[in-house]
């Protein structure tokens, strides 16, 4: 018998896990009770609430075992690529070669949350002069120093140019500590001018052909570095296969997001949907398993939508969420306050859009890199958010500021201006540090106010 959808705490999940195991639940090699990750120090897990489906269990276990996979890959003779900042392009190239595994050291920004500051990474960053005025991604510095959260990669790449200053500065600090970095340039995306033709990018933005060509040439430098590391050619057929595989992930996520965000009753909670979306950027270090995990999740969501079951009531306020949260618990908090996610822009929308298959692979990847919402104007980003608000039927926008992030000081105001003008829906900005325990009452009040506003507007 399939249990009705519920959000359950970790202890209950572990009991449920035993029940499912005895009932013959099949598990992947990384499977097991979620509680074991707490013993590794991931204490925040004790405070989260989880979807009770086996598909969600598999998703969480996949996420929380990435370090093991990276170490196993190295022991198995594979080379590790630490792609930094571009969020979705370099890993597609790396996974086109059999003996490379790519991941984002940037992901360390969640360690202070998941380990509730116990890992000491922020203190290490402090000692290196990167204090709390920087974005929580500074935890990455500490992770490199301790070597305890991921193996130091064999190759580090970092996109710079039209990126946030925090990350660029932190990566430079890392470079100054003796880690060689292959810097590649991503220029600020601009619209064509004069007689330039427009190149349409994934997600609907446009750029000039000269910018696409420039980024393609930058990615050629990455290609050469990957070939040298792998000791084999990263030729066009290999890249085309890699792109097709990445597009499988993206297509699965597209179906998953559409179903989850438009269903009358929310079929999958915000937290699991956030984790699922994150898989797109580097496949959690295993592309095939990512596909399997997402297929499982999509099947569960499809089943629930068909049955008309899910979480929350059908009256839940439909919220579009902008920016990822440093504290995962805030996604639970939204649901506690009566809201559900109906649309997201977590800064890596370009990792969700299909990579063009009708142009040569390197040009397709250049177009994808240029479609990054961060490399263009905030007005572009706002326009995309407006399109998705309409697509998913969101009733309000929540802009989640990242403490200390250079882009957050002004971007939220611009997005709010555009959304209010174009959609006439309420916009709320909140700031989410790595641990929100001290501010959760305030955050709740603000989220409740947003939900109430949405519901009041329905009545008028």
């Amino acid at each position: 018998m399939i249990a009705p959808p519920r959000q359950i705490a970790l202890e209950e999940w572990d009991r449920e896990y035993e029940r499912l195991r005895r009932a013959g639940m099949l598990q992947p090699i990384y499977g097991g009770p979620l509680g074991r990750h707490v013993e590794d120090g991931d204490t925040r897990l004790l405070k989260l609430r989880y979807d009770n489906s086996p598909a969600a269990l598999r998703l969480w276990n996949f996420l929380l075992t990435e370090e093991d996979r990276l170490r196993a890959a190295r022991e198995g003779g594979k080379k590790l690529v630490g792609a930094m900042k571009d969020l979705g392009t370099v890993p597609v190239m790396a996974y086109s070669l059999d003996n490379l595994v790519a991941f984002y050291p940037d992901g360390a920004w969640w360690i202070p949350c998941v380990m509730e500051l116990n890992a000491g990474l922020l203190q290490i960053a402090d000692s290196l002069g990167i204090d709390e005025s920087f974005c929580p991604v500074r935890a990455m510095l500490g992770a490199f120093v301790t070597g305890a959260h991921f193996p130091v990669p064999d190759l580090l790449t970092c996109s710079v140019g039209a990126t946030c200053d925090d990350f660029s500065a932190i990566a430079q600090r890392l470079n100054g500590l003796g880690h060689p970095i292959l810097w590649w340039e991503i220029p600020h995306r601009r619209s064509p001018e004069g007689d330039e033709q427009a190149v349409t990018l994934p997600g609907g933005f446009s750029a000039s052909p000269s910018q696409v060509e420039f980024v393609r040439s930058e990615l050629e430098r990455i290609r050469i570095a990957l070939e040298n590391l792998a000791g084999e050619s990263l030729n066009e057929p290999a890249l085309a296969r890699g792109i097709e595989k990445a597009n499988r992930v993206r297509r699965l996520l597209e179906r998953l997001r559409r179903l989850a965000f438009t269903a009358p009753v929310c079929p999958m909670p915000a937290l699991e949907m956030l984790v699922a979306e994150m898989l797109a950027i580097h496949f959690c270090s295993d592309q095939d398993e990512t596909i399997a995990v997402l297929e499982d999740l999509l099947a569960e969501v499809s089943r629930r939508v068909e049955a008309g079951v899910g979480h929350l009531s059908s009256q839940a306020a439909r919220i579009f969420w902008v920016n990822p949260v440093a504290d995962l618990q805030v996604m639970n908090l939204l649901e506690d306050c009566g809201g559900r996610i109906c649309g997201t822009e977590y800064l890596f929308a370009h990792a969700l859009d299909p990579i063009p298959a009708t142009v040569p692979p390197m040009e397709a990847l250049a177009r994808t890199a240029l479609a990054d919402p961060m490399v263009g104007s905030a007005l572009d980003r706002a326009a995309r958010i407006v399109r998705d608000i309409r697509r998913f039927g969101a009733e309000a926008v929540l802009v989640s500021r990242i403490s200390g992030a250079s882009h957050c000081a002004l971007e939220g105001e611009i997005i709010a201006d555009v959304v209010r003008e174009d959609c006439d829906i309420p916009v709320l900005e909140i700031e989410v540090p790595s641990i929100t325990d001290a501010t959760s009452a305030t955050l709740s009040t603000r989220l409740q106010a947003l939900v109430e506003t949405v519901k009041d507007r329905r009545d008028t």
Partner: protein
Amino acid sequence: MKEPTRTIVYICPYVPSEWIAAHGLRPRRMVPVPLDGAAVIPRVEGLCPYARAFINDVAANGEADGIVVTTVCDQMRRVFDLVVRRLDTPAFLLNVPSTWQTTAARRLYLDELKRLGRFLVRLGGREPGKDHLAQVMRDYDDAGEHVTGSSRTDGIPVVVLGGPLMQRDRVLFDIVEQSGGCIVLDATEMGQRGRRSAFDRRALAEDPLMELARAYFEIPDASRRPNSELYRWLKRELAQAGARGIIFHHYVWCDTWHAELGRLKEWTDLPVLQLDSDGQGDASIARSQNRIRAFLEMLQ
């Protein structure tokens, strides 16, 4: 020749004033003043006070016929969005590559200058001929635009290093002198560090725009990736300057310069004094004054 009547305002050192002047327009490198009560951007947590002062100052004085902003700093890149949305003055965003070691990056900067040229023509400027541009560049060079120099006094020799400074923060230089120091190297963005090198006259004669791009693109800055050229420049200049200490200034929320402090301390044997400023009120200056005095006393 007719005096230019239209003014192009900019703040970034990677915007070549000669290029604007060669188009028959008046380049004005602004040093912003923080304006109380200015409305384009209110005081916002996380916003660099320099970026805020820039847009508020531009909006308040109404003198600009065109505004040039660059991508050197993420916050200024975001400020450009607000300039476009909230001001009527035509504005241009110049893409300055962070990387500098590839031919493609240099080519991109050159192409961006050409694109800036087209913007200037749209504002009423004239596309300059090769000879005219070369003459303007020679005139600027002869006028010593690239040199600031500093006269030594008997005080304790120190270097001021950091990003840009607002007008009010130039008072730091007076405080240093009043406290018994002398600044032997101004390595802020408005000082020697933010100036291009002298033009190569032979290269200038052959292809002035290419030489202009070369001279400006080589300005060392913390924002370059890697920013090793900044340290190479500092090593050379510090050796010549004979400084006994470094005063390191940055605005709060300026990640690019703030992040360099730790590395600078590891890199240099000289004592380093950090001055962080929120760009607001006298309290910040009074605090800086106390710190500078203590630093100079220590160096005596």
